[in-house]
């Protein structure tokens, strides 16, 4: 079902709110991976508010869909989403990165309600997602596994090991999003270590692959519904995104991979996010 006008409006507002909160936490915490959190915001918002079969009151509900943030440095974005979705009190975000906080740069699944996998080191999450999808098959469960990987992350050989195994075992309960924001710490992905032709690579690795604008909620929604219905192979939704999306002074700038924000910058960031609404 295409997004209704009301859903579109609500999701758009939700995504803007998530982006503003990411800016807040980046300020409170002294620094965070804001660029890559903003690039994946529309994808993760759509998942958590429309497609994931979850129950925030029961984070360990056995039959829930799983979500793995393989690009674990997006932890600040994931934390905001989990709080907003009701897994824990938003107040917890204020102590992000503090020594006794349950929240930090890379989320710890043993501490953070709703976080299905501890990630952070690149190239680990997709393998865990493969295991969860295989687990559903062994246990004859209907849960699906949604996983967001980075583009820079895909320099890691383990991503392709995981891809091979997902295709080999025909894991059609696994849907992978690649947050193709084109930037990594040292610069554009194609300068640091070229990934293209990326869609061809995923197809060659046995993934049903769709290229989609990762900020177009209608297009994303359509792609996700295609992926959910697809049988016989895992699906890759190659999402074209902008690093720092929504904050004009960050968009497309590798230096905003990680950074801190002062009060003025937070205000400026929020104004920029709201101006896009």
């Amino acid at each position, binding site marked *: 079902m295409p997004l209704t006008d009301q859903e579109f409006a609500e999701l758009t507002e939700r995504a803007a709110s998530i982006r503003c909160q990411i800016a807040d936490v980046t300020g409170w915490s002294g620094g965070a991976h804001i660029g890559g959190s903003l690039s994946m915001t529309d994808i993760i918002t759509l998942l958590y508010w429309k497609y994931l079969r979850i129950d925030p009151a029961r984070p360990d509900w056995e039959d829930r869909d799983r979500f793995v943030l393989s690009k674990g440095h997006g932890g600040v974005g994931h934390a905001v989403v989990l709080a907003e979705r009701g897994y824990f009190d938003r107040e917890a975000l204020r102590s992000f990165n503090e020594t006794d906080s349950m929240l930090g740069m890379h989320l710890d*699944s043993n501490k953070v309600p709703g976080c299905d*996998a*501890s990630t952070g080191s690149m190239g680990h999450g997709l*393998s865990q997602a*493969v*295991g969860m999808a295989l687990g*559903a098959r062994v246990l004859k469960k209907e849960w699906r596994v949604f996983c967001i990987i980075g583009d820079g992350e895909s320099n890691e050989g*383990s991503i392709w*090991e995981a891809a091979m*195994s997902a295709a080999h075992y025909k894991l059609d309960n696994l849907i992978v999003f690649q947050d193709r924001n084109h930037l990594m710490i040292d610069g554009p992905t194609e300068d640091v270590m070229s990934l293209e032709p990326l869609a061809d690579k995923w197809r060659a690795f046995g993934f049903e692959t769709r290229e989609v604008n990762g900020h177009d909620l209608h297009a994303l929604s359509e792609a996700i519904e295609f992926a959910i219905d697809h049988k016989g192979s895992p699906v890759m939704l190659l999402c074209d995104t902008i690093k720092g999306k929504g904050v004009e002074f960050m968009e497309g700038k590798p230096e905003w991979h990680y950074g801190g924000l002062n009060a003025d910058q937070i205000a400026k960031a929020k104004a920029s996010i709201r101006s896009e609404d």
Partner: protein
Amino acid sequence: METASTLTWTIYDADKMTQREIYGIVLTDLGKQHPEIVGLSADLAKSTKIGTFGDAYPDRFFNFGIAEQNMFGAAAGLAKAGLTPFVSTMSAFASMRACEFVRTDICYQNLNVKIIATHGGMSFGSGGATHHANEDLSIIRAFPNLTVICPADTIETAMAVKKCMEITGPVYIRIGRGFEPRIYESEDYGFEVGKAHELRSGTDLTILATGNTVFHAVQAADIMQERDGLSVRVLNMHTLKPLDEEAVIQALLDTRRLLTVEDHSVIGGLGSAVADVIAASGKGCAFNKLGIPDTFCPHGNPEDLMHLYKIDTDGIIEKVGELMQRDFEEDEDWEDEV
């Protein structure tokens, strides 16, 4: 073959099987009682014998090809799903190729994954340094949450594989390539994870051995008892972590001379673990470590390599002789403690 859950069959068959073969059979046996067990291999199903499980339970067995990193990451995901993965590959690859996946995906999340690492130490002698695992214990002993077991023979392998199911959390069981001589006659000798097993009592010196060197320690102790009247205690330190510190301290107080033996580097394995306990105790003693020195080993027959590095019966006897001559400073309250 009868594979009753009592494992009594091992008495008849242990002599004819390798640690790997026993592992495959015991795991298959456990698979009957535990539908949550799944088996994972990285193109070594035949070599590590986990294929025995795979033949019995094809729907619960996954070959990941030669891709150990992904295999251990996927094992974490399977454990997250509520299953109990048994993951087999050679020790060198489990501890080094897939090191970070074992540490971060499995140990950090404290997941119920059982790692059966075969071809430990120099047991794949002809494979050369690429296939020797002389560093695995140093590396993985530093991982929080991980239990580390090095069974001494086939029966102990069966016990370790069976008992690891009682541990909630990750376990690393290091076994050899095969043909380890048998030490135990039956499975009712009192194997307990984390508790050293005293194979010989003694008051002059203690040999603390692990894995395939335990057999040589026992032989050496028996020869020295008969030939020299030396009373040598032999402790089978099958669990490297958590280490049975009590048994080490008792041996220290009782015998004041200790020798560790392992098919592993002298850096970071059993010897280092025991040395830590001794140093912390503040007691003077004569202590030495037998193991692989800080070197890459040549290709060769495992028995020849063990002889070369003096971790066989002859080498242990030689080192015990040296250690018996060594002076050490006795502290003032020594008599009180004995």
